[in-house]
Every structure is written in structure tokens, then in C-alpha cells.
């Protein structure tokens, strides 16, 4: 009994394995194994285990290499015989695969790959939160940073860099000394910044712990780029001093060429220069960005708990500054790439749709060709080719075709990537890391083979069910495949649906981009020139010297012929967030105060120069200077929010909560709010101080040209050399950045939007073109197939109208079904899209209407040629074909 069971299991195994054995050897193989098992009843199960590799060996022999090469050779000949088909199909695939490979490379490099630092998965970003102030990812106060560092139990190390806002952590330095003064970009970091990231300078050393403190901080680490550009790659530079902002700093190290933090190409890194008191007591302002390295095995959530504990402790100890002040922690990678995530996901989804449309299109072409090849396949099958062999032949051909497409696609992808790296928006993180790497190549190969199988398997299956005799008889109508018609319709419907979704996405983005361009900035970027200046602290060490220089400079600039207004602001337009504070209005309820009001400092004439407007009261003038009564301007966003029914002019406010020590300042004017923090969000309540009172080493000059009439735009009258000349005359040691019109700043701010819109438009165009070609192909084929029927109908008295209706009815049905599917898809992706849109609803009915109309029009074009052909069918020809 037991023996029976054993034999049964063994037989089961042999039966299962027999499936793999090529059919022509199967019965023999079965007989052999029957005998073998019969002779070895005891060890039957163990013996039968050999059946599986045995079967596989036979299969491998069957699919021998020469058969594959034979298939490939045959495939090549077939493709060469119909070059039109091959070129169209390969190009279609090249576009689909190339675009997908390019977008994959971008997404992989930006979103998925680890940051290029040691054990980067453990790197996190820390920030402060405060629900009272709507702070979600705020900077950290130095004293809080010191306490986190001291009291945490979760981190190996914690470093900080100076950052005024999320996007304003790049500092400017003036390099003077030998040669032209130059403006450098850099970071102010704690000494352990590089060791925390695990970055070793290529030359010299990184900072040492001591160099955090004032007095020991006269050191600098420079970039490879600066070292080569400015110092001729001189290795002896390490150990010598360079002058930054008029202060000598010893170069201690040169970083490796590929080091970047975020995407910024920086030149210099300098230490914090803290004093023990400054770091111990400064719990306001918040101006540090903090990165940290988790101890191995500690999760983000555990670290969060640890930090929460420290934060609530600080809250108890320093209620004045730390009430409701929380801590947030998240992966550094997410911090850097998070803002681009939605856009990249949308691109990836869009390009996948393009690839599917391309596949559907080629599958359709293959089906049409399959119908034409019916005879050839029938002959081969009559000559003894098994149907599996024919299917394999078809699949080999489609994979071959896909490989040609994939190779071309790789060229397209590398060109596209080069273009993105060169022209992509500078605000895109990790842009310089994008390349066609091994992962991207593997991915391209994988999608090539998969697409080859996807678009090949359908026609291949079709080739299988064909009736040999019918095909051999060779009438055009029979050559077609009854089931193939339905399949081709389905493919076209899918193409239409996907391209409709793409088109909706692209149109939404385009409308959003138009809205952004039309938005009332509150200033007029045309006919302006702007330049940023940084005064070296060594020379301009008092507020008086700073404001004197600025006065003289503005006076000279206003005297340039053609200049209508000139002014300066501490923070340039569209250069990230302004600093913010609380503020209190005089004579209000004791607990009433405003929070998170923005600040900037201006000179007289600045509002004029940028093309803004003073709505009430006056601009700053020469009397608003140090020693005079303190005055401020406010914008109308602040007035609307805090002075509902009052006249703000003459009222006083200070920059603190009630009971604070900040001095009172009188409001002398109301400025029409302008978008100085970003094009895509509304201006916030802002207070402007006089730059003559609250002076700074860094400011941006803006000039406006022209009076009435038609003035020449500033950028055309070569103001730049004049401006540079004047600055050079006043101080030959001052580096001057590029003189740019404000339009350039607006352009730069819009660059990411322009990039997304362009990319989506390209995808949509590709999708729609492919879908149109697909529709055209199907309809032409249909018209040709029904030529006979049409001829008969005409002979029987059908009018031209009847014929047109016959053909278009089919087209209309396909288009309608495709559109319904596309609408559903577009609506479903609305949530993802809405993250990218400005001023447009993701479900905007007008957009949908436009897209539907457009696609219908395009579909009509695809119908025209087949209809014309059908109308020209002569009944005689049709009947003769019988």
C-alpha cells in the first residue's frame, strides 16, 4: 500500500516535469521514466527528482542556439523587407523607450538614489515647529541647537549651517586681493559639517572642532572649482590666506570636485565663529539649519521621541522663547528632494502612458502586418512549422524590433538627459547627479524586452488561431482576422484614452503657466536693471559708512541719463523668504499682536524703481535716517488684515509682543503689496524699514529707465558697464555681480513651471500623434477591408453620404469610447496633478472641454483620408475582386 503511494508521488513528479519536455520527445520520455520507476520502486521518489532537470535539459536542447539565431536572421530579413513598417515602428518605440529611460534616469537620480555621502540613509534634517506661528519646517535657534546636541541620545553627531529660510542658505562673500574682486557663494557651517557627511577634502583638511569659535574661525574650505578657476590649481594654496569680505582666512582644505550640498555650486565654506555666550543664550532669532546622523539602529521615530523630550524640557525652562516650540525630524534626502516629488511622479506617470501608447501603436501595426503575412505564416505552418515555433518567430521579431527601438531610444534618452542637465531649472535638486547609469541602462533593457513581448504577444497569438486553408486561398477579406479587428479597436480605444489623459494634464499645466505669467506681480519687471552688492565688513564697519556709501552710489546712479528711479533693498525680489517677527500695534488690547510678519529694508525710490505703488502716505525720504524718529512702510496686505476700519498712517507699531522692548515706529506710508517672496504665492503682511536706519552689508540695487513716451528698455542701453564703472569709481575693491533685469529674476522663478509644462506638452504631443496615427491606421485598414462591401452598396445605389456615414460611424464609436476611458483616467489623476497647478482647478471643466474638442478634431483628421478613399471605390473594381 505504501509502495503504491510512493510510486504515485513519483509519477506525479514525472507527469509535472513532462510538461516541459518538447512535445515530439514527450511520449518517449514518458516511457523511459515509466521503466526507470518500475525498476526502482523503493527509491522512486528520489529517483523521480531527476526527471525535472532531465526535462529541462531536453527543453534547452530543443531551444538550441542555432534555432534562435535562425529566428533572428529570419526576423532581420522580414524587417528589412518592409522598411516603412520597420522605420515607423522602431521610431515609435524609440520615442516611447527613450522618453521613459530619460525620465527614469531623472527620477532615479533625484528621488531614489541615496545621497552621495557616507551611509547617507542615516542622515536626517532637523527643524523647529511652532503651531502658534504656523511654523512647520522652521530654522533652529543657536541655543536650542546646542541643547539638542548636548542632550540627545539618538544621534552620532549633529551639525548646523546658517540659513535664513528654506531656500536662503547660500551666503555671499566678496573675494578680494589679487585680481578682480569676485562675488563667491558659500555656506557658514559648524566645524563638524564635513565629517558628519563623511566628506574628506581632496587637499588639506576639513575644519577642526576649535574653529567653531570666534578668534579661531579665520579659516576657509574652498571648492575644487574655485581652486582651479581662481588659483590655477596651486597645491601650495592650502596654508595661505585669502581675503573674504575684507577678512583674511587661511585656506585649510580643497574639497573633491564632485562635492555638492543640495544642487548648489558653491565656492567657500566658513565656520560659524560663535562665542560661548552667543550660542548659550540665543533662542531668537531662528537662523540655523540642522543636519544630523542617526546612531546605527535608531529609527527616525525614536529620534523624534528623543527630541520631543528635549523640546518639552526646553519649553519648561524657557517659556519666554520656547513655548510650543517643537522639533521635527526627517530624512535629509526627503528634505532635499521632497519639493520636486510631485512633479517627478507626474512625469513618470505621463511617460509611462506615452510608452503604453507607443506599444499599443506598434502592436496595431504588427496586427495589420500580421494580416498581410497570413499567407507566409500559413505556408510555413503547412510546411511543418509548429504553431509554437511560429509564435516564437513572431516574438523574436517583436523583441528584435524593440531592441532596435531601444537602441535608438537610448540615444534619445542620453540627448534628453544632457539637455535636462544643461537647461533644467536650477532649483531642481541633484540636477548634476542625473546621468544614464547602470540602473537606467538595466531599466531600459528591461522595458525594451518587456515592450517587445507586450506588443508582440498579441499578434503572435493571433498568428496561431489562423485557419491555414483560408489563408492559403488568399482572398483579401479572409486574410484579415475576425478577432483581430476587435483587438485593434481595443488598442486604438486605449491609445485615445491615454492620450486624452496626457492632453488634460498638459493643458492644465499650460493654463496654470499662463495664469502664472498673467499674475499681477505688484511690480513691473520690464525696463529695470538690478545688481547685488556686498560691502566688505573690514572697510564698512559702521552703519554710517554703509549708508554713506549707499547714498553716494544711488545719487550717482540716479544721475545716469535715462534712469528714472533708483533704490536699494536689503533682500532682493524673488530671492526666497524674508525674515519675520511678531509685531504689536500701539493702543491695542494687551493680548493682541501679529505674528510672522515679514520684513525688508528699503531706500527711498526703491518702490518707484521696481514699479510698485505707494497707495497712501509717502515713501521714505532723506529724513528717515539714523537718529530721526523711526518710521516704517507697511503693505496693504498688512493693512487689510490688521487695520480693518482704521487709517494706518500715523499709527505706531513695534517688532515684539506686547510688553516687549522694541521701540515704536510710525507708519508713514502704505505700499501696494508685491510678490517679493515668490511668483506663485500671495504676498504676506510685510513691514518695510528704511535701509538708512537698519543698514546692512548686503543689498540689491534696482534701476528703472525711461520717463514718459517710449523709453528704451534699460537692458538695451548698455547700462551694465556704466553701473559697474560707477561702483568701481566709488570702491575699486568691491566685487560686482552680474547686472540683470528683474525680468530675468521672474524668468528664473518661473523656470521650474516652464520645465514641467514643456515636458508635459512634449509627452502629450507624442501621445496624441501616436494615437492619431493609430486611429488613422485602423480606419484605413477598415475602409480597405470593406472596399468590396462599399462597392456593392454603391452599386446598389448608396449615396456618398451613406458611405461617409458608414466609415465615420465606426470612427465616432471608437473615439467616444476612448474619450470616456480617458476622462475617467484624467479625473482619477486629478489629485496628483493638483499639487502642480497654480490658479487652475485640476477638474477644470473648461480644460476638459477644450481637450475633448481638440481630440475630436484630431480624430476627424484621421478619418478624412480613409473616407475619401472609400468614396472613390468604384463598384466595378469592387465586384471584380470577387
Amino acid at each position, binding site marked *: 500500500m505504501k509502495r503504491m503511494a510512493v510510486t504515485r508521488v513519483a509519477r506525479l513528479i514525472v507527469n509535472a516535469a513532462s510538461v516541459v519536455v518538447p512535445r515530439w520527445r514527450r511520449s518517449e520520455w514518458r516511457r523511459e521514466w*515509466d*521503466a*526507470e520507476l518500475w525498476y526502482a520502486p523503493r527509491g522512486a521518489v528520489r*529517483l523521480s*527528482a531527476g526527471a525535472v532537470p532531465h526535462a529541462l*535539459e531536453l527543453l534547452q*536542447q530543443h531551444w538550441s542556439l542555432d534555432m534562435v539565431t535562425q529566428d533572428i536572421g529570419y526576423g532581420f530579413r522580414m524587417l528589412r523587407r518592409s522598411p516603412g513598417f520597420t522605420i515607423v515602428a522602431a521610431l515609435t518605440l524609440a520615442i516611447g523607450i527613450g522618453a521613459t529611460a530619460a525620465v527614469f534616469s531623472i527620477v532615479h537620480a533625484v528621488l531614489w538614489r541615496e545621497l552621495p555621502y557616507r551611509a547617507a540613509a542615516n542622515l536626517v534634517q532637523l527643524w523647529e515647529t511652532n503651531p502658534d506661528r504656523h511654523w512647520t519646517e522652521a530654522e533652529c535657534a543657536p541655543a536650542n541647537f546646542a541643547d539638542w546636541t548636548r542632550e540627545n541620545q539618538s544621534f552620532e553627531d549633529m551639525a548646523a549651517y546658517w540659513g535664513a529660510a528654506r531656500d536662503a542658505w547660500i551666503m555671499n562673500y566678496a573675494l578680494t586681493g589679487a585680481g578682480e574682486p569676485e562675488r563667491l557663494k558659500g555656506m557658514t557651517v559648524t566645524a563638524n559639517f564635513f565629517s558628519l557627511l563623511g566628506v574628506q577634502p581632496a587637499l588639506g583638511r576639513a575644519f577642526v572642532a576649535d574653529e567653531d569659535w570666534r578668534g579661531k574661525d579665520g579659516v576657509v574650505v574652498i571648492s575644487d572649482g574655485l581652486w582651479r578657476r581662481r588659483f590655477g590649481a596651486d597645491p601650495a594654496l592650502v596654508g595661505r590666506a585669502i581675503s573674504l569680505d575684507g577678512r583674511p582666512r587661511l585656506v585649510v582644505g580643497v574639497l573633491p570636485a564632485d562635492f555638492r550640498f543640495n544642487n548648489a555650486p558653491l565656492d567657500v565654506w566658513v565656520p560659524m565663529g560663535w562665542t560661548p555666550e552667543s550660542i548659550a543664550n540665543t533662542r531668537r532669532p531662528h537662523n540655523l539649519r540642522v543636519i544630523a546622523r542617526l546612531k546605527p539602529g535608531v529609527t527616525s521615530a525614536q529620534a523624534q521621541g528623543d527630541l520631543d523630550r528635549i523640546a518639552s524640557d526646553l519649553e519648561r525652562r524657557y517659556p519666554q522663547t520656547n513655548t510650543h516650540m517643537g522639533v521635527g525630524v526627517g530624512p535629509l534626502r526627503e528634505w532635499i528632494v521632497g519639493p520636486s516629488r510631485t512633479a517627478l511622479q507626474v512625469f513618470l506617470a505621463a511617460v509611462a502612458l506615452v510608452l503604453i501608447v507607443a506599444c499599443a501603436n506598434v502592436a496595431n501595426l504588427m496586427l495589420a502586418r500580421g494580416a498581410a503575412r497570413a499567407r507566409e505564416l500559413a505556408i510555413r505552418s503547412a510546411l511543418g512549422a509548429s504553431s509554437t515555433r511560429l509564435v516564437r518567430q513572431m516574438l523574436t521579431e517583436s523583441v528584435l524590433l524593440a531592441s532596435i527601438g531601444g537602441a535608438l531610444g537610448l540615444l534619445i534618452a542620453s540627448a534628453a538627459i544632457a539637455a535636462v542637465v544643461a537647461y533644467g531649472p536650477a532649483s531642481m535638486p541633484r540636477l548634476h547627479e542625473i546621468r544614464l547609469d547602470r540602473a537606467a541602462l538595466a531599466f531600459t533593457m528591461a522595458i525594451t524586452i518587456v515592450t517587445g513581448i507586450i506588443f508582440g504577444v498579441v499578434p503572435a497569438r493571433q498568428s496561431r488561431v489562423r485557419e491555414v486553408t483560408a489563408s492559403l486561398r488568399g482572398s483579401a477579406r479572409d486574410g484579415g482576422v475576425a478577432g483581430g479587428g476587435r483587438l485593434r479597436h481595443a488598442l486604438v480605444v486605449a491609445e485615445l484614452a491615454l492620450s486624452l489623459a496626457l492632453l488634460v494634464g498638459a493643458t492644465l499645466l499650460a493654463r496654470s503657466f499662463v495664469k502664472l505669467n498673467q499674475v499681477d506681480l505688484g511690480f513691473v519687471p520690464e525696463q529695470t536693471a538690478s545688481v547685488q552688492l556686498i560691502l566688505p565688513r573690514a572697510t564698512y564697519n559702521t552703519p554710517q559708512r554703509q549708508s554713506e556709501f549707499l547714498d553716494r552710489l544711488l545719487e550717482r546712479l540716479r544721475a545716469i541719463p535715462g534712469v528714472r528711479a533708483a533704490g536699494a533693498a536689503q533682500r532682493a525680489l524673488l530671492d526666497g523668504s524674508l525674515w519675520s517677527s511678531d509685531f504689536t500695534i500701539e493702543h491695542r488690547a494687551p493680548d493682541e499682536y501679529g505674528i510672522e510678519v515679514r520684513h525688508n529694508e528699503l531706500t527711498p525710490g526703491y518702490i518707484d524703481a521696481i514699479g510698485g505703488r505707494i497707495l497712501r502716505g509717502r515713501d521714505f525720504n532723506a529724513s528717515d535716517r539714523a537718529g530721526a524718529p523711526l518710521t516704517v512702510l507697511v503693505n496693504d496686505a498688512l493693512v487689510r488684515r490688521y487695520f480693518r476700519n482704521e487709517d494706518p498712517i500715523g499709527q505706531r507699531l513695534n517688532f515684539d509682543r506686547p510688553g516687549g522692548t522694541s521701540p515704536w515706529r510710525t507708519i508713514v506710508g502704505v505700499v501696494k503689496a508685491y510678490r517679493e517672496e515668490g511668483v506663485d504665492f500671495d504676498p504676506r503682511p510685510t513691514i518695510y524699514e528704511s535701509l538708512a536706519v537698519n543698514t546692512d552689508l548686503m543689498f540689491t540695487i534696482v534701476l528703472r529707465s525711461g520717463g514718459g513716451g517710449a523709453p528704451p528698455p534699460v537692458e538695451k542701453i548698455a547700462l551694465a558697464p556704466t553701473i559697474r564703472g560707477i561702483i568701481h569709481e566709488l570702491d575699486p575693491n568691491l566685487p560686482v555681480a552680474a547686472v540683470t533685469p528683474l525680468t530675468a529674476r521672474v524668468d528664473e522663478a518661473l523656470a521650474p513651471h516652464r520645465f514641467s509644462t514643456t515636458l508635459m506638452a512634449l509627452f502629450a504631443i507624442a501621445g496624441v500623434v501616436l494615437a492619431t496615427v493609430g486611429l488613422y491606421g485602423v480606419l484605413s485598414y477598415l475602409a480597405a477591408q470593406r472596399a468590396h462591401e462599399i462597392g456593392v452598396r454603391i452599386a446598389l445605389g448608396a449615396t456618398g453620404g451613406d458611405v461617409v456615414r458608414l466609415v465615420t460611424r465606426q470612427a465616432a464609436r471608437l473615439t467616444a469610447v476612448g474619450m470616456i476611458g480617458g476622462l475617467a483616467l484624467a479625473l482619477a489623476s486629478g489629485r496628483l496633478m493638483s499639487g502642480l497647478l497654480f490658479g487652475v482647478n485640476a477638474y477644470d471643466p473648461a480644460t476638459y472641454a477644450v481637450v475633448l474638442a481638440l481630440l475630436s478634431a484630431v480624430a476627424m483628421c484621421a478619418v478624412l483620408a480613409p473616407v475619401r478613399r472609400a468614396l472613390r471605390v468604384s463598384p466595378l473594381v469592387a465586384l471584380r475582386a470577387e
Partner: protein
Amino acid sequence: MSRLPLRPTLVAVLQALTAGARHGFDVISATGLPSGTVYPALARLEHEGFVESRWEDHKVAQKEKRPPRRYYEVTRAGEKILTAAVAALKERERAARARLRAFRPVKVSR
């Protein structure tokens, strides 16, 4: 090291067949190799032309009330390659022994 003309397992299977084994199960008992090695090896050898197979006369089998077996025989080509493979294995063994003889353990002084 020169390449062997035949994998050692294939050599073992060929040797078993020359020594008188006639079918898969015989080869397993003669060589001690697992069935998962022996059957694919037989198929491979046959595919390469080193082994031929024929079916036992079914009358004989019927008389003995058992299913007919598949018998494997070494071909001329198989005999040739076996000779070459054995020679190669011996050469390899000789080289290995020579290396072993030349090998002197290094004394480590403390």
C-alpha cells in the same frame, strides 16, 4: 590549466556505461551520482553524439512482465572523447601532484 574536454560528471557517466551499465538506474548505482545529475548527463551525451540509445525489444520485456527499458551505449565518438578526457584528468592529477611536491610549508619563527 587546459580545459577538460568533458565535465567530470559526464566522464563518470561515460565510464559507467563502458563498464557495462546500460540504463539510467544502472548508472546511478555504478557512479553514486544523484538522479538529477545522471539523467540530464545522459541526455546531454546523447545530444552531443557520445551516446546512443535504443529501446529494448518489447517482446523480451513482455515475457518478463515488465516495461521495456531504454538502453544507452557509448558511440565511437564517445570512446574517443572518454580516452581524451581521462588523459586530461590524469594530466591534471599529475600537475597537481607536482605542485604539491614542490610545496614547502614556510616555517614561522616566533
